């Protein structure tokens, strides 16, 4: 009983937490492929967190549970091929749901890239971020429909394409005019 009381007080004093504190993708070699911070961490804390977590997570065996306790938070991770998807949540959050969020994200990436692999995420890292931004804001889930997210992303990609074409036709006109 006392334990909960003390937690409440501390959360008021120390920080206001969000559901997901950060998301990161780490390769089996420990390389960072994506990080997104929803709670405030300094640059130093960020690299320390990633270093510590990759140490813990990469060394865990395959049959063990997908959760590790980390500094009063919990990190839920899941491995897909050579990539570890990690989500740091608060002590009282639902770990099983976090696993579903990870899977949701992976399915959307898969649909977008067409059977996604690590190289897709390396060369198109900004696209992975765009997708994540349609999935999560402020550390909270934004959309449960994969189709809606796919539609939103392709609409925005189209906007970029249109702008590109306009610009290239414009530069062609300029090029021809200055010939």
């Amino acid at each position, binding site marked *: 009983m006392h334990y909960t009381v003390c937690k409440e007080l*501390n959360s008021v004093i120390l920080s206001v937490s969000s559901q997901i504190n950060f998301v990161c993708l780490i390769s089996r070699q420990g390389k960072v492929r994506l990080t997104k911070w929803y709670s405030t961490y300094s640059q130093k804390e960020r690299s320390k967190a990633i270093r510590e977590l990759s140490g813990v997570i990469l060394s865990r065996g395959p049959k063990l549970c997908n959760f590790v306790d980390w500094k009063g938070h919990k990190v839920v991770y899941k491995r897909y091929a050579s990539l570890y998807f990690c989500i740091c949540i608060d002590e009282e959050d*639902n*770990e099983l749901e976090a*696993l579903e969020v990870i899977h949701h994200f992976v399915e959307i990436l898969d649909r977008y890239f067409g059977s996604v692999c690590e190289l897709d995420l*390396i060369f198109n890292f900004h696209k992975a*971020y765009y997708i994540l931004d349609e999935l999560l*804001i402020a550390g909270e889930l*934004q959309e449960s429909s994969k189709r809606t997210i796919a539609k939103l992303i392709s609409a*925005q990609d189209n906007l*970029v394409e249109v702008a590109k074409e306009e610009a290239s036709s414009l530069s062609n006109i300029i090029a021809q005019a200055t010939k």
Partner: protein
Amino acid sequence: MNPFSSGTRLRDMIRAIRACKTAAEERAVVRKECAAIRAAINENDQDYRHRNLAKLMFIHMLGYPTHFGQMECLKLIASPGFPEKRIGYLGLMLLLDERQEVLMLVTNSVKQDLNHTNQYIVGLALCALGNICSAEMARDLAPEVERLLQFRDPNIRKKAALCSIRIIKKVPDLAENFINPVAALLKEKHHGVLITGIQLCTDLCKVSPEALEYFRKKCTDGLVRTLRDLVNSPYAPEYDIAGITDPFLHIRLLKLLRVLGQGDADASDAMNDILAQVATKTESNKNAGNAILYECVETIMSIEDNGGLRVLAINILGRFLSNRDNNIRYVALNMLMRAITVDAQAVQRHRATILECVKDSDASIRKRALELVYLLVNESNVKPLTKELVDYLEVSDQDFKGDLTAKICSIIEKFSPEKIWYIDQMLKVLTEAGNFVKDEVWHALVVVISNASDLHGYTVRALFRALQTTAEQESLVRVAVWCIGEYGDLLVNNAGMLNVEDPITVTESDAVDVVESAIKRHASDLTTKSMALIALLKLSSRFPSCSGRIKDIVVQHKGSLVLELQQRSLEFNSIIEKHQNIRSALVERMPVLDEASFGGRRASSLPNTVSTSNGTAVKLPNGVAKSSAAPLVDLLDLSDDVPAPSSSGGDFLQDLLGVDLAPATQSGTSQAPKAGTDVLLDLLSIGSNPAQDNSVSTPDILSSAQDHKPAIASLDVLAAPSNMMDLLDGFAPAPPKPANNGPAYPSIVAFESSSLRLTFNFSKQPGNPQTTTISGTFTNLSSNVFTDFVFQAAVPKFLQLHLDPASGNSLPASGNGTITQSLKVTNSQHGKKPLVMRLRIAYKVDGKDVLEEGQINNFPRDL
């Protein structure tokens, strides 16, 4: 020239970096790229700006500094086109965080984008704001976001809802503006809007009691209906996961219902049926279903009691616990930990399974299970549970031993039914994992041994035996050496033999052998060696026949490189050689260490979670008694694993050692570990003294501690060999008491409610600016007498707080009398941060409990 046809260059850079064989090569490539980007920035190159930013983001991800690109983000955000804005906002979120002042410059652009005609640009701005906005930005832009909650496109509404969460977390005062718009979101059909609206609603309830009341009244029924429709909805391919329609929405609805139902019987009643339906109908063969069940169980456990539902929930947990999937077992343990306050009996039924989980191969599960077992221990099951844990200690992983040892020690100290059991178990732990035992734990053991006069012989013989088999556990060696020094005679003559032990034959020289090996062992640290040296001095008098040999050992340390050992060996040598006449008086057995004052002081600095079972606790005076002090310390302690620095624990050691008599004992005290950290210690429950006996005497003991000190100090050579200096030279006079006239501070009214006022007077000791002595005076403003008055305070980590006992626990009505209580606060950030304190005052009026809480921010600045 074309800004959009240069995408290959980013790819080229990534390829070049990936092709690097060594870290040095990579650094070189990155350095070259960064130089080029800086040059482009200096030339204010517009065409490649977005590509350069993309490259910087990649470089940032590799961990290189990229601050020079921050302004580029702002320029891109300010440019008119969608592609530039898209990458600009992404860069803003990646390269900056809310603490950078550059962020303030973007407020205006974000404001314009929030009003943009292109909804995707509005979306980008909302997303960035939701992810990194600071409190100032939140204040500036809240009206825009609030308006967007009613935007025509649902995708903007959902983004605005999540953005609002960030805003109210940063500025809770803004919460009330969002209450009405959110109520509208809860009625929507679009799942994205519904999910985000429910989430916002949950967060509003957390920060605003009015919001909670409002939603409880207006929305509970609607939410129950939404959940029912969702549960009964037909197959919906867009939202289907493993045969369940939108588990995410399920979970958020359950979470919000939990918040609404907690503490409100009517609301809880309204959701009983649907919770029962979710708990029974949800498929549990896939993760999604289990996630819903898990959330549902938590909601059932949190809302107002409904016996039937709780049985259902506990059964689900039982099923989880026996699941083969480690994830499910992990969450079951987690949940059982919370369920224990609701239904301890039901959790106890799973004890055997939980105990098995302590031995699991998965560290995450082990840790959870151990914490749960710790909560399960009570007077009736402590013996078998401890046995299981101690047995497991033998085979457990090295990196788990620390946690396990701390928990076992804590259990032993808290629940031990008799002293001999306590000593036996502690010896087992010391033997198995002595290196993991915290200092205050073995200090406590020494105190207990010292008090158990009928067990002195038994203990010293058991320790001697244990040392024969295990000599590399530091704290075992220390305790053994201490006991042999004190009770060496009992070891040799087998005095006080108990029925349970086998006689052993130990000669005087065997005993000296043991101590000698402790002092000569390479691994022994200074504390152990010092203790061994003192033990030798004591033995030189107890075993006159070995006196010569002991003298030789002592003399060997005359050349020790450690000053402490060198000095002591010289002094001890002179005692043995020249001061035969006073030696026996000097090395007499230690007087019994004062268990009650040890316990009292420990209790005031350590959490104690079981004391609620002690019915008499409420009669104890504030600050001293274990149970009234316990919740307070829980307030301060983050968790069992985070040691809260405590000054009072340290005081105890100092008092015990009589340090304040000898001004020059720095070396002694610096080794003496700071006691009072993370182990739950309840010495009061160990001995035969029931707590209520102590409760009467404890304040006296504390107040008269001053008188005890000379007596203790004169003989105490436990862990501060430096005291020997005083023994030789006669007592140094106590240092003159500094005049008590530190700088003056105005007194403040720290807390005032309709019924109670608390004023603080401050004083400081000259020469110690960090520490402030606060004298608090409570005045009752109501016309009723307050009884069982307990004051508690909590401070952030940079402060240390020590509470002295209050002058009483009942407060006469209408200001006809006061309670005073003094607090000592040490500010480790003195001069940098002001004092801040949360307080909580509990008392009874006409037998009814009243709880008042508050925060004190108006301390004088330079405390």
